[in-house]
């Protein structure tokens, strides 16, 4: 597929709001028109071609080269198409997106996939705090889609998450799945302190036993859950360990909680 290439000329001094540069908006524009678009940085608006060199063919595929942590809101609100970022991105990657795919070959900042409803986000590096979490003022975090982080995630991953699958191949920080409402958050590495704190429903799927669980989680025993076979099959095309998760033969200890907040969530720990 031909793609439009935006190559960052130099690292901006202030954060850029790239949320207007979503594929479906750029697809109908010519390169000069795209270059003339204005994006916000600090209290100013700057033309795209002042910050990026514009090349390639406009369409539903967008490639951003030489990314950095000042690029905020990449793919935020996108509905279709594909974005590939070579380099890092800042906060709000894919926030509120309702379709399409984003692949970041680097690290992502805070609140990646916040409010995401559909689509797929892959981050080959690390993700910041509040991955898939609710932004301040929002009632719900991620509400659908699949997010795969090949590295580690910061604190509060999946905070107030409502639906979808959030997969972290590395480690997750403190308060992982805090206040989770529903959905599936899976961590292949370790998790920090207080996983699942105040979670109402949903699944925190762990491949390693955490150092400690909050005291408001009770163990129900060890079981071979049938629904995990469906998850494993749904993830089969993903790269990395989640794509190789066996469909059968696995046993998980089930801890139910947070009993201080309805207690219908679960932390499943592979044995």
């Amino acid at each position: 597929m031909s793609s439009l290439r935006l190559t960052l000329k130099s690292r901006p001094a202030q954060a850029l709001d790239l949320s207007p540069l979503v594929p479906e908006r750029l697809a109908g524009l010519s390169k000069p028109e795209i270059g003339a678009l204005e994006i916000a940085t600090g209290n100013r608006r700057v033309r795209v071609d002042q910050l990026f060199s514009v090349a390639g063919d406009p369409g539903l595929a967008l490639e951003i080269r030489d990314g950095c942590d000042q690029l905020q809101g990449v793919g935020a609100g996108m509905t279709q198409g594909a974005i590939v970022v070579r380099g890092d991105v800042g906060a709000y990657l894919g926030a509120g997106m309702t379709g399409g795919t984003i692949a970041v070959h680097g690290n992502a900042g805070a609140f990646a996939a916040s409010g995401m409803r559909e689509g797929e986000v892959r981050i080959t590096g690390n993700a910041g705090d509040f991955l898939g979490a609710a932004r301040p003022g929002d009632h719900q975090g991620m509400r659908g889609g699949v997010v795969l982080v090949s590295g580690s995630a910061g604190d509060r991953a999946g905070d107030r998450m409502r639906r979808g699958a959030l997969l972290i191949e590395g480690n997750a920080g403190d308060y992982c799945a805090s206040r989770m409402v529903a959905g599936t958050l899976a961590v292949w590495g370790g998790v920090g302190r207080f996983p699942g704190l105040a979670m109402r429903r949903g699944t925190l799927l762990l491949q390693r036993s955490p150092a400690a669980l909050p005291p408001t989680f009770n163990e129900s025993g060890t079981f071979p859950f049938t629904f995990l076979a469906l998850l494993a099959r749904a993830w089969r095309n993903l790269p990395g360990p989640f794509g190789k998760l066996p469909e059968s033969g696995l046993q998980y200890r089930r801890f139910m909680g947070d009993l201080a907040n309805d207690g219908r969530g679960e932390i499943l720990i592979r044995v």
Partner: protein
Amino acid sequence: MILNGVTIDDEFAEAFGMKATRVLITAHTLEWAHRAAASATGFATSVIACGCEAGIERELTPKETQDGRPGVAILLFAMSGKELARQIERRVGQCVLTSPTSAAFAGITDGEAVPLGKNLRFFGDGFQSSKLIAGRRYWRVPVMDGEFLVEETTGVIPAVGGGNFLVLAESQPQALAACEAAITAMRKVPNVIMPFPGGVVRSGSKVGSKYKALQASTNDAFCPTIRAVTASQLSAEIGSVMEIVIDGLTAPDISAAMRAGIQAVVKLGAAKGIRRVSAGNYGGKLGKFHFRLREIMAS
């Protein structure tokens, strides 16, 4: 048309539009999936009194099922989507949910979505939970052996019910052997079921009765023991008649099943006491699907 000494009557089977769905039942072993499926499709020979017609379509390998376990596909047919929805819920609720290690999934995702586990989930008494996986919602209902996993809905599509053919033989054992051979061949055809016991029905019916309360009564024209007093369609050498009824997702599915079954019957031939193959109809005025025997066997 005479094939291997067997006369193929110039008749047609008259079939009706129905609604159908497929449910995939899995379990820890194929044997337990069969038990759940047999129970769920029990007492489902005819819509006249059973509410629906149902049967086992085929076995499923672990690679074909959503949870990677062995399973069985069942098909259910009813005269309306509403009645079918009622039957699905009752049968899955009483026969699959109750069966150890079982799970139930939609085998058809097209058409109108009707509840599969959508209401059965309330058996969980508030401890049930759902998972949305690859765009499809599943319910995890806690039960005493673990969890009953069931998909929220299954798809209901238009289908065809009442395809049939009659096997006319010299004796009862010969008619039965021919029907058994036919059923063995027809079970290899996808998208169809033969809802009667063992796939065979010996009590073919006609519309109406001398008794006002009855809508249907014995097909006296094909009953050998009363041929002396009825307008019989049986010649003297016919000693037994059995029928195979077929429900299918499409008309071509039924045609394929009828062809496979009749070929198996014909293969036994006159040497094994098979004299004729005929079909049941109501003069062509009731059902919109007509399956002409000679056209099917000539194609």
